[in-house]
């Protein structure tokens, strides 16, 4: 085959260009640490990367939801604990009252129960992060309100403005977790507070508590504990979910890294290779371009 000067120059230029192009590409990969920088670098991997990134973003969101849920559940749990210890106090007061006190002492116990009632209502109205804990999904309205009618005889009524709605948080793809227990669940709506009002009124009137009232206090405490138990289950489940989400995040990140990131060792080796090839091309060019018959003619 006849080889002409023009082609030699073209071929050398071509191979130098090719080598440079690949070197720039590899340098880009090494500098950014990313093997896939645009979709055309690897369309299939890009699709995976986008999917993994979305999963990672969602995972972060779920973890945020879970920690938010934990706060809510913990706060509700501790409120129920407080209420439970108030009920224990009421039980003690009832025992004291039964043990044959003077009327004035019974009235004093009634006053104590009044204090407990006020505290209980205040606890039941607790807010967490701008939400009432026990109002169901009526989270912006104070759930319990005590109203005193001057009488005579003076009477106290309690109203519940919440509902029995469940608040659920998303804690995974297609997974939700209830985080609340409503006043309807935990306190039997207004039952607990009506009971406290009745007990107080009786004691303040010097009437000794009936056996039925004593039993009712126990029942209320049991309802309360059942609700607290449910919250405990929620909390446990949230902890498990949180652990699961964290390990999922680790897995996703390692997958992401193996799909997207540059294999530094491989890329470096490849780069060295390419540079050697470029040098070879340049050296060849330097050697073969000058000589022609003209050099030997005088």
């Amino acid at each position, binding site marked *: 085959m006849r080889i002409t000067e023009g082609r030699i120059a073209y071929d050398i230029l071509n191979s130098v260009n090719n080598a440079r192009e690949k070197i720039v590409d590899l340098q880009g990969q090494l500098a950014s640490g990313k093997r896939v920088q645009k979709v055309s670098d690897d369309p299939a991997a890009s*699709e995976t990367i986008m999917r993994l990134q979305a999963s990672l973003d969602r995972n972060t969101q779920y973890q945020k939801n879970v920690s938010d849920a934990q706060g809510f559940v913990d706060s509700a749990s501790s409120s129920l604990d407080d209420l439970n210890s108030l009920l224990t106090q009421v039980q003690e007061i009832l025992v004291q009252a039964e043990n044959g006190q003077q009327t004035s002492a019974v009235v004093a116990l009634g006053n104590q129960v009044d204090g407990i009632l006020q505290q209980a209502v205040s606890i039941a109205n607790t807010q967490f992060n701008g939400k009432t804990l026990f109002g169901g999904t009526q989270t912006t309205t104070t759930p319990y309100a005590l109203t005193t009618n001057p009488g005579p005889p003076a009477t106290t009524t309690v109203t519940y403005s919440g509902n029995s709605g469940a608040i659920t948080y998303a804690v995974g793809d297609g997974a939700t977790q209830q985080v609340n227990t409503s006043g309807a669940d935990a306190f039997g709506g207004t039952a607990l507070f009506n009971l406290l009002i009745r007990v107080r009124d009786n004691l303040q009137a010097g009437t000794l508590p009936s056996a039925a009232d004593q039993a009712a206090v126990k029942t209320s405490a049991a309802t309360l504990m059942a609700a607290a138990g449910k919250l405990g289950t929620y909390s446990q489940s949230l902890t498990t979910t949180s652990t699961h989400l964290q390990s999922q995040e680790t897995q996703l990140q390692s997958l992401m890294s193996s799909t997207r990131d540059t294999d530094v060792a491989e890329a470096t080796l490849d780069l060295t290779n390419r540079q050697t090839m470029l040098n070879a091309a340049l050296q060849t060019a330097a050697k073969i371009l000058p000589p022609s018959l003209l050099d030997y003619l005088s």
Partner: protein
Amino acid sequence: MSGLSLILETARRALMTQQAAISVTSHNISNASTEGYTRQRANLSATPALWERYGYVGTGVEVESITRLRDGYLDGQVRYSNSIESSATTQQNVLSQVEASFNEPSDAGLSSAMTAFFNSWQDLSTHPEDSSSRNAVIQQGTLLSQGFQRLHTELTQEYNSMNDDIAGTMSSINQLTSEISDLNTQIVAAQTTGAEPNDLEDARDSKLDDLSKLVNISVSTDTGGSVVVSIGGMTVVSRGGAVALTTAVVGGQTQIVTAKDNTKVNVTSGELGGDLTLYNTTIPGYLSKLDELAGALINRVNTLHSAGYGLGTPPSTGTNFFTGTTAADMSVNAAVAADPSLVAASQDGSPGDNQVALAIANAANDKVLTGNTMTVAQFYNSLASSVGSDINSAGSTATSTQLVLTQLENQRSSVSGVSLDEEMTNLIQYQHSYDAAARLVNVADQMFQTVLNMVQ
């Protein structure tokens, strides 16, 4: 004529012939680096002999013709590959810009915006009573709409610039065909004198090569020496002249037609072919998918949203979150943007209920596209990666055709290229012949002297 005069005449012919050959060689050397130059050769032949009593006596040498060394078959191959290569390269270049508009995979693409939008609904679901979560939902919705609009605008700009490209390519094609037609006329005229207008033919071949980069052509030569150029079977250059081409829109598709009688010209490759594919098929395809995606997203979110309740007394309901139906006009409902309490998170009007917010957050996983088989993210990811695949397939066609072209160009240069080594060798050869012929004149001169001296 014989004897001494014949020797002198033969020497004269030799001198002139070697001179002509050297002048062809020098033309070759001068054009060693000229693009499209075909090496020429002086074809020497012996002049007719004279009959003498003792036999035929040679009368010397003459230049019979000066011809180009060119392989028409290789030209055809190169032009075919040119068309394929430039079609693929055009598509690769334009699609790379489209790819840059998609800007994936990154934190700034639509994929991230969609995830952020759905995540903001989850945030709202944990704080449905909170106005800052509502504002965040509106903000993410606005960012998402802007993302769709931006991508739509950039693709549309790309689409419109293709129109300009097509017009530009068309005018280049018309220019080239009329130049080729002019060269045809000049070449035919020159050939009537019996000589080969080599450099005009080079110019015409060069233009044909240029034309083959713009559009798929096939070339043949008629008996008179004119080239006949046709595009997809339609003759555009012949001895009769060039046929001007123009564009026409038929059934929403831009076509190339003859300016005179609107006959369709079948353009399949070349830069124009690449442009047409992009303009008629590829980019509108991306745009319609983008619109389909935006439409499905808007529809799904609005369906869920309008069934829910916002805040306020009585709680608002029946509100659409988005307005618009395509990527171009998608936007957050202005009423919602102005009043965050209209954002519907609740299914029953109680402010702490978050079922609708959860459902909208979950719409990320709802299969609402391609016959309810794909989620919005899946659909978008496959759209974005199809751009990458399209680039790669155009790129690999370009690369493999470039390899073929390099090979063909090597072969063509092997036939037609100027080799300086060869020209120098020829030069020396012709120079020596010239020297020898001059010597012959000298000898003949001395012989004449001898004869004349005899007479004295």
